[in-house]
């Protein structure tokens, strides 16, 4: 994280603004009225931005302009035009490809973003800097560590995950993929309900490629087992692990070797069926776990034989009438769909 002193160096203090820009006339936000504006005593915010607008109008690209963008970004990190201008200054000053300058700007963005940044501009600034400079090994590590810090604050930060995926794909290093697999597993351990972590696992196991090539049967088996052992058995109420299992199996059915895929489905249908039995053994109604039932229905459908489909129809009707009435019409549709599968 950027030390306070370094952060201050990157900005112009509010009290110095009038002096640093003594040669310029501050411009208030134009609201289209073109009236003669009586400048009231401006707040710090207004003063900084009034000078920023003057700079934009003059198109000055300089150190003081660069520093002013930092001051303004601190006051409002979501102001995209400020970030644009900052990058233009960096380019103009020859700093965009300078490693130290890039490192400082990444630190600045981190300092301004706070522990859990959720603004597009700050995240994109990092990417823009690295797209220009290149995601070298050094930056790759720094960035992955930074993202980890953010995810510690909020393990589901969507921006953080998108950016993380970009870094991993851009570098495409086997060691990193393996480390990332561990990282995703750790997050799932810590919070099985973290859907982003499950999504990341999918991303990593496919090495980021979305070209339709399925996992090998061995990999698929490992993943399906993981979904059951570390996911559904631990918390059958969790949606993410169920969807993960079904996606793995579906991918094999659609893109892999059909017979092997069918076998994999059968193995896991049996496992899910057993998990439901475990409910009954503790005198609980397995129907109460809507998720598990929905997953079993999908697996029975994948099995495709008449008996399985009939079972699925009956389960779907149970969801409609009793267990998942908030989605009654969906389940009635599903039951009909499954019944059509039998009739064909």
């Amino acid at each position: 994280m950027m030390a306070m002193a370094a952060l201050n160096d990157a900005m112009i203090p509010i009290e110095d603004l009038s002096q640093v820009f003594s040669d310029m006339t501050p411009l208030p936000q134009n609201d289209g009225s073109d009236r003669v504006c009586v400048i009231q005593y401006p707040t710090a915010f207004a003063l900084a931005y009034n000078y920023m607008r003057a700079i934009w109008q003059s198109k000055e690209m300089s150190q003081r302009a660069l520093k002013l963008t930092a001051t303004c970004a601190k006051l409002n990190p979501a102001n995209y035009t400020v970030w644009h201008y900052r990058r233009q200054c960096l380019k103009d000053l020859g700093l965009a490809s300078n490693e130290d300058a890039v490192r400082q700007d990444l630190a600045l963005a981190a300092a301004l973003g706070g522990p859990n940044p959720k603004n597009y501009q700050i995240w994109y600034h990092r990417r823009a800097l690295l797209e220009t400079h290149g995601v070298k090994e050094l930056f790759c590590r720094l960035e992955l560590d930074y993202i980890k810090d953010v995810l510690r604050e909020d393990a589901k930060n969507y921006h953080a995950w998108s950016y993380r995926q970009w870094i991993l794909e851009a570098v495409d290093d086997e060691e990193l993929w393996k480390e990332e697999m561990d990282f995703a597993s750790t997050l799932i351990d810590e919070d099985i309900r973290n859907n982003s972590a499950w999504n990341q696992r999918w991303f990593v196991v496919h090495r980021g490629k979305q070209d339709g090539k399925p996992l090998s049967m061995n990999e698929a088996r490992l993943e399906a087992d993981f979904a059951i052992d570390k996911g559904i058995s631990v918390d059958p109420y969790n949606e993410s692990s169920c969807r993960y299992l079904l996606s793995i199996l579906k991918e094999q059915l659609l893109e892999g070797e059909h017979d092997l895929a069918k076998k994999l489905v059968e193995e896991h249908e049996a496992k899910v069926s057993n998990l439901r039995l475990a409910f009954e053994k503790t005198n609980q109604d397995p129907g109460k776990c809507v998720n598990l039932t929905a997953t079993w229905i999908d697996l029975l459908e994948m099995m495709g034989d008449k008996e399985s489909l009939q079972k699925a129809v009956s389960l779907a009707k149970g969801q409609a009438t009793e267990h998942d009435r908030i989605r009654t019409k969906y389940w009635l549709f599903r039951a009909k769909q499954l019944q059509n599968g039998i009739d064909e």
Partner: protein
Amino acid sequence: MDENAVVTLDIGGCTTTTTTTAPTSLFYHGRHVQYIEKLSVALNSTKSYEGAVTEHLRMSGIYWTYAALSLLVSPGQADSILGVHCCSRPSNDEKTDQDYRPSIVEWVYRCFDERSGGFGGNIGHDGHLLYTLSAVQILAMANTEISQEKREAVIQFVISLQQQDGSFSGDQWGEIDTRFTYCALCTLSLLKALDRVDVSQAVEYIASCQNLDGGFGSMKGAESHAGQVFCCVGALSIAKSLHKIKHPDLLGWWLAERQVDSGGLNGRPEKQADVCYSWWILSVMTIIGRVDWISKDKLASFIAKAQDPEDGGIADRPEDMPDVFHTFFGIAGLSLLDVEVSHIGCSSKRQLAIVSNGINGKFVVADVAKATKDCGCILHTTSDALASQCRAMPILAAQVNEIQSTEEAHARKKEGVTIAIGGSHRGYTEFLAPFTDGIIANQFLHGFWLFPVMMSADLLSKDT
């Protein structure tokens, strides 16, 4: 508009388990109008801090404000409250900030960024797709013809942002996100210039962003997220390419699963419900014809509970502070739940004139039927096609009448006819504004022209 105007939401009986004291079935129509009006004035004040920190996205803020208000009052009233076409203020001795403000349309044009050809979030900002779409939407709602020159500049701006793989960046800096594909295609379709970009390549890119759980993310590989799903499906719909959704039932199921016990919808598994997803998700479910897969009653109840009954406005969830963003999306969501949010009270009138040119015939019929279900109305329409469809419905007898003049509008009003705008109301709004009682809520959306919802050809066939 009476600030105390309250409309009972006809959402059927629904039991709730929360103990909030606010009634769950009331829609604080008048309060919301007040809220929007107050907020838009407050943000423009030179003393407003909130106004200052959101000035860079004011274009979108105005869009949410204008669109929300347009769902609540007639176009004429919305125009006058916000000063869309002209900023007429009562003259008094002390001029305030407001008195100097330009009209919204004038202000929008001031936000045009010559360098890029797009619109910025406010005057002086760089052009960006997000604000370009909001600008074009505002101008469309205001029924303003954009100049040839500007139209071409905007088209060139959008074209310049398409990448080789069909995706779009938000501006010349290059951030890629499926949100921008939606912004690009929606902007161009509103300008009737969709053919100026490579639509099929854009479609291919979106299709490649579909995940195996049925949802869509911001890029390939990104986690499925309801907001991104809206952008992707909306884009496909505009491009008449809904068939590219590989697993529509799975998508419907993924969306239906977003409904949690409170009745609200979340954006991803295991996240909190938020009113804005009422729009992102409901609109997609409407487009793909599976809106019945959630409990509409429970959702409407959730949104209703997120209202502030005293000061108006809708928050992200019950008990939180309202904001204009959630107010807009909450109302828009309610409008898709067959909840009558316009103040047309047709039960006391025997005739309803809906001025529509029938482009969205199928959709109009469904909504007219819902809006007039109990009042045995005679529908006046300008469209033969719409008339014949309405004649087939048991409750309506349609007459093809065109209200061509203000005299005729006046005469109809005197006869006790309720006049509403439906469908693409371009060309009628101006002269009908003084006579218009309101807008059939869903139909307002079609004033956005080619809004995704209307493109779903099989919409009515799912309506069983």
